């Protein structure tokens, strides 16, 4: 048809006109690795120290794409799902690793003997292993714990127990809140997102004896356990939380705590390295820590998040990428960080050798505690009633991102509007049921 051919040729001319103006730069030069990573502190250090790697491996050139977590996740997922192959190294968590390995989106990682795989903490190694093969190497790992301000507790005449309960935290938070001086009793994640407020709340719901789905994938949000957990959360946040709590994620709370505005904060163990660092924290000498709170169900699965480095199956530089990720997660790398930034900044939660180091124990008073928390984490453990999924602060199914995003938004609205927990839970239960029906898991 002449019309279409004219159309096509015009289009081609148009594209050629543009292309002619610019040399088409090849997406990948040989020996160049494009690394996608999150702008968290440990990764920023890795980027700075990577010049050492390039010195050791002059034939490998590194290109960095450093983005905030949500943007990065969306970029990386779009890229890998459309098999576009823009990246050679991905920074992903233990939520993605098993799911993506099953889709054959990731290349299995085979580090050499010098890497000493057996030095990795067993729980961490297990979570990155699918069908006997390792699909990512752990960069740092975290469980959860309770941070509190010792000075405020002393002033209020209370002592933090070794294993506080949710009810106790609410009580203490109320005692130390001093809104005229902008000290808020408790800071918890309120920013909506499956990895933000829903990570904290999923763990909380598990501790209150609830769960996302029963053994047949039926959503169980409309239950007394969810109601108890959310009521606790909403009450304490409304009464003693900081203003603007609905937009506070991990990073925002870290900044608030470090600048002296929070009394208690329950979050990732990785915050310890930053809160105890006087360069980054105004309360470095006043921070205390203890176990994450427990609820009515004592043996709930406990939090485990592993930021790991993985290689997409579509990468054209698998060998070089392997060289890089083994370097960035090696013992030598931990030493390098210690040398340049001090032991307190060393990547935590991955290697026995880090914890065995007396310098690390001295610099990081929380070290033994964190190691314990990670070694005893059981994300695959059982909830009070049988469940169909695994994970402590997430449900390890592809649909969880959709579910967590939707429910997370509804929870954030609870903090700022007068909506009741009951009505929110029943509408969320319907929304989750819709997603699960669509996924085919729920019939």
């Amino acid at each position, binding site marked *: 048809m002449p019309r279409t051919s004219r159309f096509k040729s015009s289009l081609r001319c*148009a594209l050629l006109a543009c292309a002619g103006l610019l040399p088409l730069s090849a997406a990948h030069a040989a020996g160049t690795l494009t690394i996608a990573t999150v702008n968290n502190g440990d990764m920023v250090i890795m980027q700075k120290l990577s010049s050492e790697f390039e010195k050791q491996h002059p034939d490998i050139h590194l290109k960095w794409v450093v983005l905030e977590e949500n943007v990065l996740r969306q970029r990386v997922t779009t890229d890998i799902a459309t098999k576009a192959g823009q990246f050679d190294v991905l920074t992903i968590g233990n939520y993605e690793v098993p799911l993506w390995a099953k889709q054959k989106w990731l290349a299995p990682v085979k580090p050499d003997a010098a890497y000493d795989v057996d030095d990795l903490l067993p729980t961490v190694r297990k979570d990155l292993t699918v069908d006997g093969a390792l699909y990512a190497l752990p960069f740092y790992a975290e469980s959860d714990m309770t941070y509190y301000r010792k000075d405020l507790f002393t002033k209020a005449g209370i002592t933090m127990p070794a294993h506080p309960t949710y009810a106790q935290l609410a009580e203490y938070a109320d005692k130390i809140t001093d809104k005229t001086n902008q000290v808020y009793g408790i800071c918890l994640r309120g920013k909506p997102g499956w990895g933000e407020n829903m990570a904290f709340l999923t763990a909380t719901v598990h501790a209150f004896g609830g769960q996302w789905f029963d053994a047949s994938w039926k959503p169980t949000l409309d239950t007394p356990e969810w109601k108890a957990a959310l009521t606790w959360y909403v009450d304490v946040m409304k009464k003693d939380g900081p203003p603007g709590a609905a937009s506070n994620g991990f990073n925002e709370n870290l900044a608030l705590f470090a600048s002296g505005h929070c009394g208690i904060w329950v979050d990732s163990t990785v915050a310890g390295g930053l809160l105890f660092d006087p360069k980054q924290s105004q309360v470095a000498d006043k921070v205390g820590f203890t176990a994450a709170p427990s609820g009515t169900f004592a043996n709930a699965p406990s939090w485990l998040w592993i930021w790991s480095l993985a290689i997409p199956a579509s990468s054209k530089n698998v060998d070089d990428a392997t060289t890089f990720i083994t370097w960035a997660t090696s013992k030598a790398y931990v030493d390098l960080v210690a040398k340049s930034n001090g032991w307190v900044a060393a990547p935590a939660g991955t290697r026995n050798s880090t914890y065995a180091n007396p310098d690390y124990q001295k610099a990081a008073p929380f070290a033994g505690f964190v190691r314990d928390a990670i070694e005893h984490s059981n994300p695959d453990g059982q909830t009070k009633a049988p469940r169909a999924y695994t994970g402590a602060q997430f449900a390890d199914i592809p649909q969880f991102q959709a579910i967590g995003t939707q429910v997370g*938004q509804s929870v954030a*609205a609870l903090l700022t*509007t007068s909506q009741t927990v009951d009505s929110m839970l029943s509408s969320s239960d319907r929304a989750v049921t819709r997603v699960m029906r669509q996924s085919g898991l729920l019939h």
Partner: protein
Amino acid sequence: MSASTLAAPAPPRQSARRRGTLALVGPSVLILAAWATVPLIMTLWYSFQNYNLVDPTQHGFAKFDNYTYLLSDPDFWSSLANTAFLVIGVLVITVGFGTLLAVLYDQAFPGRSIARVLVISPFFIMPTVAALLWKNLMLHPIYGVYSNMMRMVGLTPIDWMSHYPLFTLTLIVSWEWLPFAVLILLTAIQSLDGEQKEAARMDGAGPVARFFYIIIPHLRRAITVVVMIETIFLLTVFAEITVTTAGGPGVATTNLAFLIYSRALLQFDVGGGSAGGVIAIIIANIVAAFLVRSVARNLET
């Protein structure tokens, strides 16, 4: 144009010219048509598919499922309302204040040209930066400058993003677009004949009367331009929302663009997101038709 002129055979030179015209308009129309239709066809195709980026096990023809799913979602309807609120709110604020400021900066006072430059500066700021700036440095309930100022005079700072999210978002977007309105309207006022203004003054018209009877009618065309251009951009406001509220709390600041983003790229349901995209395309065409009928008439010279 009457039917007879169309039916009359064009002189040969004229038809050659017509072809020349087509060759000139053609490239732009064609590339835009390609840009608008190729992704449209793909979007239309996806909108009838089960297509989840992170779960390739879901695939196949979805019939109208994506549409019924979207249209039966209460969030969808609230997103339409939010889109309308945002567009209309920003238009009212920018055109209203823009007119006042244009009149203000038409007057002579010391340092006027510097003051003008300062006022139009926000137009050059990236939306992402503007949103980060307002969210963190200005309105943060603890560290924000405005919160601190309120505290200094003994007031409790307002938690803008939690309690008035859509209103706050409207203000931020208005801040970005106010300079554009001022720029266009000021230009228009300056082109108003000095003699015209002077004559009105001689007739004894006060400043208020001059504003309503001379300036406003003169600005009609310029206001039309502002409304049209701003509408085009405001329908797809996105960066500001992602950065400040991520559509929340709840769905308080989710407009259609953000709803589609949330479906397609936060929840990775490309089928559902595409259904939203198709609906957005329909809405865009309705708005364009509306512009043709009511707004564009003012642009005829």
